[in-house]
């Protein structure tokens, strides 16, 4: 019975004996390249010079290693040894013997990593083999070899070569055999068979990347209202994603490590990278795609919102693209305007996957050059999230630059600015700028809105009152304390010919008006929002805030609302 138990308990130890738990380990440690010690093996290219340490780790506390010889073979089509340095004590006698066109035929009677058995026991041999060299690294010292983490015996440097597409790079640098001994006593102690192991790394196996030394990067320009750190770039190689890289605050990202072959196809795709409470629709789309955009487009397409001249209002090609939401494409029609109106009134025209359906990017050079003539003439313009990356490998750097926009953003408050050479017709909203914590907007003028709130009985009431006679559209986003208030209703006092809308989320109400009869919203128009308040609420202070606002005049131009 005891015997059986011993066998059961000792069996795992027998298994472990296949790798070193005593004796000495010999390992071929990758130490980067001569130019970049941190470069991983997976990124090594043709013409890099890799650095390898021949490391010996003494696991036998009863003996000191003062002698070693280690044989390492390498494929000469894949590697050329260009330098070496022994790391043994200063009093050591070091020797290197090399043989060309020789390769070790492994001793199949023993583990291939049982280095002393491979050599001392019959079964293995060196044989002539074209394309393989063997180096015999030997050192003997009167003092113990050091215990450097790497390179106890020697540091080797190999130039990486292109051995051809059909070459097999498996185990192209390989520890074939080794002998370890202690000469400090009266007689030599040779570490026995089974106790000199190649561990943990016996060989280098890596198919080198092409010698492509171009730095490749992407820059995504965004409007100041669009935080580029909430965007990321997905890199795909032959259709398989190899990286997901967030942009930095300048919209930059380096993709050098992922675009590594001149023969494979690479694409870059913009994706949303928001997290936590970030929400693309609430933070960007609903602020970009607003009632003033509708008014602007209505004025363009039929003079419908105000006193514009149909077909002669929008002169910017990117504006037109952002508003071209309905068929036929490359024409601004009333159908485009009404589709936008439907969305602003609360019927989400995108439905789902909002970022992919509404966020757009284009090569910066094409974006900058795009005019209304290009739009009307249906010039090819790739306004999409996906682009093919084809670097010019003869250049030391390749920078792929993009500009971005959001569909529905006809007045360009969330769209990249075009280069000044094309902006003679581009800026629909010069004049007044309003900056808040969440956005910056520029319009042609400002208009005051009176705001107040108060507690009345069990209700909390917020009232907004317009003061202008020139507004054809207005929109407000109001955040309320959903832990203390329950939204009840919005009452509109905006005149008989005005279309009103309101929809409430958990803590945000989006409401407003647009007059499509070529007349303004009446002066002193009021929006009265009523909430039921919790019984414990006795103070009105801080129960709501105005997050965003938007308005347009009779020409469809953006007006900045100034609350007081």
């Amino acid at each position, binding site marked *: 019975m005891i015997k059986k138990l011993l066998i059961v308990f000792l069996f795992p130890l027998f298994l472990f004996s296949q790798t070193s738990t005593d004796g000495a380990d010999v390992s071929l440690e990758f130490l980067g390249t001569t130019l970049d010690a941190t470069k991983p093996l997976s990124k090594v290219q043709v013409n890099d010079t890799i650095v390898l340490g021949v490391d010996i780790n003494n696991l036998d506390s009863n003996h000191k290693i003062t002698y070693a010889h280690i044989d390492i073979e390498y494929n000469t089509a894949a590697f050329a040894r260009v330098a070496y340095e022994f790391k043994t004590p200063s009093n050591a006698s070091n020797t290197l013997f090399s043989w060309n066109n020789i390769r070790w035929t492994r001793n199949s009677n023993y583990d291939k990593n049982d280095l002393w058995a491979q050599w001392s026991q019959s079964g293995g041999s060196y044989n002539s083999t074209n394309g393989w060299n063997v180096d015999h690294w030997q050192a003997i010292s009167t003092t113990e070899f050091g215990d450097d983490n790497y390179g106890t015996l020697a540091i080797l440097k190999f130039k990486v070569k292109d051995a051809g597409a059909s070459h097999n790079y498996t185990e192209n640098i390989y520890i074939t055999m080794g002998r370890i001994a202690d000469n400090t006593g009266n007689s030599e102690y040779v570490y026995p068979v089974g106790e000199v192991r190649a561990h943990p790394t016996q060989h280098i196996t890596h198919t080198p990347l092409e010698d492509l030394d171009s730095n490749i990067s992407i820059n995504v320009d965004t409007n100041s209202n669009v935080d580029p750190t909430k965007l990321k770039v997905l890199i795909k190689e032959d259709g398989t994603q190899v990286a997901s890289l967030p942009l930095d605050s300048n919209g930059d990202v380096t993709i050098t490590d992922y675009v590594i072959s001149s023969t494979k196809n690479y694409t870059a795709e913009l994706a949303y990278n928001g997290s936590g409470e970030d929400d693309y629709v609430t933070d960007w789309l609903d602020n970009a795609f607003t009632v003033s955009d509708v008014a602007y487009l209505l004025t363009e397409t039929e003079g419908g919102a105000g006193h514009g001249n149909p077909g002669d209002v929008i002169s910017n090609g990117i504006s037109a693209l952002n508003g071209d939401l309905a068929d036929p494409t490359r024409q601004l029609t009333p159908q485009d305007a009404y589709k936008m109106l439907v969305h602003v009134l609360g019927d989400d025209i995108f439905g789902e996957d909002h970022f992919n359906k509404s966020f757009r990017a284009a090569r910066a050079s094409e974006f900058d050059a795009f005019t209304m003539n290009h739009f009307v003439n249906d010039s090819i313009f790739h306004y999409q999230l996906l682009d093919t990356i084809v670097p010019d490998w003869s250049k030391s750097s390749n920078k792929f630059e993009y500009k971005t926009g959001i569909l529905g953003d006809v007045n360009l408050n969330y769209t990249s600015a075009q280069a000044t050479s094309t902006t003679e017709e581009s800026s629909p909203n010069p004049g007044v700028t*309003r*900056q*808040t*914590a*969440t956005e910056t907007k520029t319009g042609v003028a400002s208009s005051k809105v009176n*705001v*107040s*709130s*108060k507690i009345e009985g069990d209700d909390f009431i917020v009232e907004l009152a317009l003061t202008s006679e020139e507004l054809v559209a207005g929109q407000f986003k109001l*955040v*309320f*304390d*959903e*832990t*203390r208030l329950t939204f009840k209703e919005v009452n509109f006092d905006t005149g008989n010919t005005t279309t009103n809308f309101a929809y409430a989320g958990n*803590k945000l109400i989006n409401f407003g008006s647009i007059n499509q009869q070529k007349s303004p919203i009446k002066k002193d128009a009021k929006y009265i929002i009523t909430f039921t308040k919790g019984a414990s*609420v*006795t*103070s*009105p*202070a*801080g*129960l*709501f*805030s*105005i*997050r965003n606002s938007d308005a347009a005049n009779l020409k469809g131009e953006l007006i900045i609302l*100034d*609350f*007081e």
Partner: protein
Amino acid sequence: MKKFLYPLMALALAGCMRDIKEDIQYPIEQSLTINEATGLKFEGPSIRDASQFNFKVQTGGTYYIVVKDHFKNVISKSEIKANIGDNVLRFYTNAIPDGDYYIEFKDPQNNVIESDRLTIQ
């Protein structure tokens, strides 16, 4: 039967009593005490949700609490009825993004009576 009658009568009498809670004058917390005749005092340099403030006036009536963001945009405005003397109220912050704000107390003629610059958390 009597043993039920007396408790029920006691309950009925208690129900008819005038609610005297409204008449109790609670002392103002020391941190909100204003020694001058008028003034504005918050519990600390920052406003946390439902923290208190004291708005002390010599003339009772309608006043407005105006919250302006870092760029001086009005983002919230509330009407209060102030009594002569101390008016201790709560300030709620769930609907206001964290940041630095100007808090102004105005009279109906839009005159700024008191103001402070505070961080809302």
